[in-house]
């Protein structure tokens, strides 16, 4: 069935259940699970606080270029929460929320964006040992997800693979080849297109002439759907179903999560060059955190006091993580050779020596010189 431009949605932008007005869907049972919704709300808030902190850290030179996920917290957190621990997560680079839910430490996320390979060295404590590192080359992770799903199938394991990508990535051959292979081999993988309407400066309508990105799955005979990516309840339901199907060996699925990138592409970008403030202001009215907040207030799950505590708690956790990040010393220069090969090629012997000499010449000697100079002064 061809997906229509009619995303699955349970809550209005104001957090009102749509059932009463639209009569389309009964709310799923899990909305009665207070702790699940509060967990989601807390993670979404922590994700936003982390984003704000990371952008500030970039502005002050403490980390490098950073891609904010502002406005896309529902997608990311729903992905993290719908995954079982031994499912395999194959992220792109704007999945901070999922990575936090998987149990990655904020100091390690900062370490990655702070230019240190060790940011990808740790097994997330609520994730799989196979969870892939952040993927920068666009859409390439889709092929890796298919390879991992194929391995799980060959190994007769029952886990699912979840792969995220952006709307720009849906134009790449990698994604289309991955969809095709996933359909042909009937693999346990769920793809989520985080359609935030912008690929740096290129808007969604230039990305593809297709009315939906979800329909790209149709040619691979993969079921797909559009979901309101700012509606946590809709996202969680769609993901839970997709992952369940995959674990049951019922094949792959594609979810197009409709959202909006409220931030610049990265801290190196200035979105005011290519889009108007009016559009952004309008998108803010649809953002996911306020929507869930209104819903949990209505349900009596949440109050102002809890909200205050949550915000304080996020800041406390962040401060602790930033301190932990700052306390991690850079690796020794020769460490760049440590993980190139498991079996050491003798041809690299000379280069390690050169690296050490270069460090002495350029840094150690300079330090000695400057300390000597200081003493003299």
């Amino acid at each position, binding site marked *: 069935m061809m997906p229509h431009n009619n995303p699955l949605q349970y809550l209005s932008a104001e957090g009102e259940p749509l059932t009463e007005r639209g009569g389309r869907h009964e709310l799923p049972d899990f909305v009665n699970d207070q702790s699940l919704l509060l967990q989601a709300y807390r993670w979404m808030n922590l994700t936003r606080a982390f984003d704000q902190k990371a952008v500030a850290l970039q502005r002050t030179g403490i980390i490098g270029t950073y891609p904010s996920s502002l406005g896309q917290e529902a997608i990311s957190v729903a992905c993290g929460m719908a995954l079982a621990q031994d499912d395999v997560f194959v992220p792109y680079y704007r999945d901070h929320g999922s990575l936090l839910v998987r149990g990655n430490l904020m100091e390690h996320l900062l370490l990655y964006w702070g230019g240190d390979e060790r940011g990808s060295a740790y097994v997330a404590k609520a994730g799989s040992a196979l969870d892939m590192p952040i993927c920068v080359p666009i859409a*390439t992770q889709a092929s890796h997800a*298919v390879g991992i799903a194929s391995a799980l199938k060959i190994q007769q394991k029952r886990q699912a693979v979840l792969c995220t990508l952006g709307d720009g990535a849906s134009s790449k051959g990698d994604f289309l080849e991955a969809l095709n292979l996933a359909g042909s081999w009937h693999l346990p993988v769920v793809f989520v297109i985080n359609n935030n309407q912008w690929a740096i400066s290129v808007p969604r309508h230039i990305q593809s002439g297709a009315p939906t990105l979800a329909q790209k799955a149709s040619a691979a005979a993969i079921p797909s759907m559009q979901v309101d990516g700012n509606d946590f309840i809709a996202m969680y339901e769609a993901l839970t179903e997709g992952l369940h199907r995959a674990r049951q060996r019922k094949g792959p699925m594609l979810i197009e999560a409709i959202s909006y990138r409220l931030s610049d592409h990265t801290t190196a970008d200035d979105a005011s060059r290519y889009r108007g403030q009016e559009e952004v202001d309008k998108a803010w009215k649809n953002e996911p955190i306020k929507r869930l907040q209104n819903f949990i207030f209505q349900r009596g799950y949440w109050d102002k006091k809890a909200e205050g505590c949550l915000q304080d708690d996020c800041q406390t956790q962040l401060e602790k993580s930033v301190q932990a990040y700052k306390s991690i010393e850079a690796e020794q220069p020769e460490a760049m050779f440590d993980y190139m090969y498991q079996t050491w090629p003798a041809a690299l012997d000379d280069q390690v020596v050169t690296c050490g000499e270069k460090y002495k010449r350029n840094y150690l000697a300079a330090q000695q010189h400057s300390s000597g100079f200081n003493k003299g002064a």
Partner: protein
Amino acid sequence: MNNNLENPDCFKQVSLVEAINMALDYAMSQDESVVMLGEDIGKNGGVFRATDGLQEKFGQARVMDTPLAETSIAGAAVGMSVAGLKPIAEIQFMGFIYATLEHLICHAARMRNRTRGRLSCPMVIRAPFGGGIHAPEHHSESTEALFAHIPGLRVVIPSSPARAYGLLLAAIENPDPVIFLEPKRLYRSEVHDVNDNGQALPLDSCFTLREGEELTLISWGACIKECLAVVDQMNAESGNDKRIELIDLASIKPIDFATIAHSIKKTGRCVIVHEAAKTCGVGAEIAAYIAEHLMAYCKSPVKRITGFDTVMPYFRNEQHYLISELDIKAAIDESLSSDF
């Protein structure tokens, strides 16, 4: 005499492509995490029959015909290898390998490094390469230097059935990605005794095929055939069977410079032969190494006999591009007769 009871001697008369098949068969039967994927490798056994009979023997789950999409073959191999399999991906011809580069360069080559050892990609990409079989456009190039330039990859090229067998087993056993390029002109050119005993040959090493005192001839892949003929003829004609030393580089990345240095120190003369285009070819790397480290031992300039910096001609004219025995002999004669 082989004292290994688990792997008794089992000599078979095979061509290079049959030796590849034998090594794949051995590896698949020893380790069930070894799987293969590629175009036409299943029922058809590969367009050169390198995987002949293996799907029948090991099943479709382990010998996978893929859609005709090289990017996802390489990308899937990255995912499979991270997830505990040892995938061997066949790219049907080297001319179609370029769609895999992003996965090989941006992922396979650096997965171990970028996760500080948490994840790795023990995978092999096999592809036939090189000219001389009257193939259509895009089926004859030699672009091994593209891969040799990439930190994190190994690049291996066999030049005999025995080395194809032993080096392929070594590539499969290796815990990092290996690009295994098969000189298709040699696929069926000769048949040799190969011991199907599962014994891998060392990686990162070259093979001295003929020992000699007066000149070091370095080559790899299909050109080894002409090099061997020239060396045997020149050694015989001179009545000195230790005149020219022939080294099969075999490991294009990393290069076994220790063996090369040992040889140049002895002979003082070097000729490098490769079919690939000259500029930034692997021969340039060897010549640069000699210039950096061994000039004091050199009696004459290093010579490179290579393909031209042209598009590989279609087959009506490819013989004017390929390296002949006469080309190699002329270069050796010149090197032997010109002193600094």
